[in-house]
């Protein structure tokens, strides 16, 4: 029983960590909260769904469609909307609130455009749902695939930020934007890169989510909220923290639901979220005051 729960917790935890990683990159570098992040997860999920249902494409191959698609959307968004907005002095005066509203509008547009195109119904497809036995747990293969890919990308990201020059430059930018610019880090290019990476990771996560869960046009926003909780838990711009936060939330959610009832799931997620924001807005590892 408990190994069953542990594996379930690891699977959802790794997905949360992955989604939060994307959110953290954009928020960390540009200090803009992409509340439409979950909508790009949803778009990735729909790519995999239609690829599978219409063309019979293996969802793993759909990753190669979903990731470029969300990356393109990121580029379009960055140049089409963001650059335009930043030219307006009035917009820049209250950039934080204004960009939030822009992302928010984008989220509303994407949800409803997908609902209009593909109906608001929930959908799912069956992929790799054979059961395997691990210890005393019965686990469908698709969950193991999700865990494998999400885990590999997360660990890869940690290594990237520890070892590569580019990764260290991004970290520097997250920690001290002005100082990073002074020592010659190309701020604008890294902003764009992180923006694209963030969206690409969302698209990837969407494909993974679609393998094991029902998808719908409105599935995205809860992921945004969960990712935000994970980012706060782990600390702003802290990649390793995101990983830890994701797993922690996965464990809390899975065991919490097992101990109470599925109807308490949302109460638990939002409860953890509110408690963290109120008690430790600087994150579990953060020392200083939260940047607000």
């Amino acid at each position, binding site marked *: 029983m408990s190994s069953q729960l542990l594996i379930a917790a690891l699977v959802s935890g790794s997905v949360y960590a992955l989604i939060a990683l994307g959110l953290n990159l954009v928020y960390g570098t540009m200090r803009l909260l992409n509340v439409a992040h979950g909508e790009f997860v949803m778009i990735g999920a729909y790519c995999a769904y239609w690829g599978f249902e219409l063309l019979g494409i293996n969802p793993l191959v759909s990753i190669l469609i979903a990731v470029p698609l969300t990356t393109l959307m990121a580029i379009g968004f960055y140049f089409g*909307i963001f650059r335009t907005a930043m030219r307006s002095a009035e917009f820049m005066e209250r950039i934080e609130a204004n960009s939030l509203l822009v992302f928010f509008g984008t989220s509303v*547009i994407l949800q409803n455009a997908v609902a209009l195109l593909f109906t608001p119904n929930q959908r799912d497809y069956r992929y790799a749902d054979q059961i395997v036995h691990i210890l005393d747990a019965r686990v469908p293969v698709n969950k193991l695939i999700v865990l494998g890919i999400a885990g590999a990308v997360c660990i890869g990201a940690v290594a990237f930020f520890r070892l590569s020059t580019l990764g260290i430059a991004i970290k520097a930018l997250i920690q001290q934007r002005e100082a990073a610019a002074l020592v010659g880090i190309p701020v604008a290019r890294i902003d764009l890169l992180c923006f694209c990476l963030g969206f690409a990771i969302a698209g990837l996560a969407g494909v993974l989510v679609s393998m094991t869960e029902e998808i719908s046009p409105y599935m995205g926003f809860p992921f945004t909220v969960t990712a935000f909780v994970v980012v706060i838990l782990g600390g702003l711009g802290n990649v390793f923290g995101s990983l830890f936060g994701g797993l922690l939330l996965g464990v809390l959610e899975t065991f919490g639901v097992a101990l109470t009832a599925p109807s308490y799931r949302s109460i638990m997620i939002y409860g953890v979220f509110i408690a963290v924001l109120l008690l430790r807005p600087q994150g579990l590892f953060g020392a200083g005051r939260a940047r607000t």
Partner: protein
Amino acid sequence: MIPILRRQIGIATLVALLAIGLPWVGNEYYTGFAFTLVTWIALTESWIVISGMTGYVSLGHVVFIGIGAYVAALTWMVLPIWAIVPLTGLAAAALAAVVGYPCLRVRGPYFVILTFGVSELVKFIVINIEAGLSMSGRVLFAAPDIDDLFFIGLGLAWLSFVGALIVSHSRFGAGLRAIRENEEAAETIGISVGLLKLAAFVLSAIVPGMVGALLIMRSTYFEPMQIFNPQTSVLIVTMAVIGGSDRPVGPLLGVVLLVALQEVLWASLPQLYMIIVGVLLVGVVIGMPGGVYGRIQRLMAANAR
């Protein structure tokens, strides 16, 4: 009282008094439409007291509607209507006081997501309570007819608008705007920012609570998923922002525009309506961050020069 404030209150009162005659002039359809219009006016005008003036964008305003509706559903047939409506306002204000103090300690995106989170949390708590009582929705028998609901809604819209006007022109409102522009500076010059924010938050909750009571009397049905629908918060924010959320006149423009659009599209193409709402929100924030009314004011100022 400053002349401009007196004039604006005078106009608002005159319009409200004239609107009382509507049920005798039109038919039930027009009254229903007017009811929708006044409830949205009441909601957006209450929202700007906290979010427009302090810049603390609340994405959870629907929680006050929901809690008001829940209190109304619980006290239905127990108390008379004239007692239920003010009680729902008080309940919403009490909730705002409880959640406002901790929520207002965080700022920017933290506050936005937190208000959303609180509203969802309260929704799921109500759902669980109702499930625990094995209630799936509550029917309100013998609800007042649309004319009476319209009169109450009109009164609330007037109250909300005039309240926002008075706050906007008062020292209190100036303090709230100072918080929006620079909270540290405001605190340094002796504005008690914590108290002001909390007062604005509690004030902004009263009217939505009462609107919540009206909405379920209109639908004669209480169902938490529906009354706590986050989409309502989205619409409040969009109406206020596209009209211009700094001054109370602004949201009126946004409400009229979106409610008219809603009337045309909601029944047939609800998703298209929401897409247009999103496009308007993005377009206005990028193109004219002060909203339509902000742009009009700028143009008038430019012409006057």
